[in-house]
């Protein structure tokens, strides 16, 4: 077999695999609908405003509700204790009355 045929077959296979992955993503998205719906229902029922992603500190547990004045954040150059806190600061803008 020619090298190019061999290579194009390889690339074709890899492309087929990646399109299978795209397909897998589409299918599991459709299948994940039930989980999403139940989670959204839980969120609505408990009136939650944040996801449970980082539980190491209070302000990383509720990033949307977090304050500038939470622990370890007081100093502008503060060395952050928690890994997620060092990468994530609360939004610095809050709407004021016009």
């Amino acid at each position: 077999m020619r090298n190019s045929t061999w290579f194009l077959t390889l690339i074709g296979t890899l492309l087929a695999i990646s399109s299978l992955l795209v397909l897998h993503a589409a299918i599991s998205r459709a299948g994940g609908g039930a989980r999403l719906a139940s989670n959204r229902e839980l969120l609505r029922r408990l009136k939650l405003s944040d996801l449970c992603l980082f539980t190491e500190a209070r302000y990383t547990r509720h990033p949307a509700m977090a304050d500038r004045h939470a622990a370890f954040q007081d100093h502008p150059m503060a060395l952050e204790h928690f890994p997620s806190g060092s990468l994530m600061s609360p939004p610095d803008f809050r709407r004021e009355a016009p």
Partner: protein
Amino acid sequence: MNRRIERHRNILDFAISSLLRRKGKNLSLLAVYAFIVFIIASIVFFTQALKREATLLLEGAPDLVVQRMVAGRHDPIPITYGDKIAAIRGVSAVSPRLWGYYYDPFTGANFTLVASDDDPPAKESIYIGSGVARIMRLTTGVHWSLRGAKGTPAVFSVQKILPGNSELVASDLIQIREDDFRALFDFPLGRATDLAVVVGNKVEVPTIAAKISRQFPDTRPILKSEMLRTYDSVFDWRGGMVLVILSVAVLSFVLFAWDKATALSAEERKEIGILKSIGWETGDVLLLKSFEGMVISLTAYLVGVSVAYLHVFFFSASLFEHALKGWSVLYPRFGLTPVIDPYQLCVLFFLTVGPYTVATIVPSWLAATVDPDAAMRS
């Protein structure tokens, strides 16, 4: 036309055969390249999937949360504020939220306590998230003693464990009755942690927020769109941050590739000289070289992306879970709904194949402009 395609195929043939002739060098290049693509793709997939999950989930969040600030600090809000807010035109419902944190000294974990009057547990009972059950080794019907604000222990029976697939929202949650919540924390009557506001017309939300902060200068309204935006930028930022750090890796890889491409061995140089002398033109050799680059980068890209997908969505990004999720006592265990789209793939392609391609242009050209008579005078 046919001839042109055949020419490309012939040269591609030779490009692959010359790559295969230097297996060691090229396989190491391919491996490093695929690894870089893999890491970057994992990060992009992971953050994009989280972002999408957050966006979809938070649609169920309250339109507006109103918090009271005292001396710049978050303070329980009088429930009476809620009645006045409910009177604002456009507000369809206001409900007080009661939530707080419970620190467990034995495990060192922080749990979130939420009181809700919608489907509450029985008196002196709680619902717990599966993360809590896991870390405290609790099962349904077991009694658990929490330390109250006055130092007296309060015993609750676990009535229900929230399903495992809800960990992304409720891993560390303890749902409790309102009266139990107030008793446990000695929370003042007539106050709530904050107020959740539902607005009929979503377009009106900013206007209503402005009205609330005018009417109650000591409050802070937080819009749902702001929460969404926070999550959006958190993940973009986090992903971008890691990418910036990784750019050092990309850069060193590019230098590595440049070096590999520039340092033509004497044998390679001779080979190109031969090709030029037997009738290959500079353009043909350039094509040969760019095919060599393309073979490597396409293969590395496709392999890297596919493996990254498997890694993130089948193995939950186990390699750098901690770097992305942070560390804590209680890890929520959540599977992500896979997200992959042409846009992401395009971004990844640009980030990984672009620098490599550019790094190989000049070395390829240097190789291709070997004089054809060089082979004759050796």
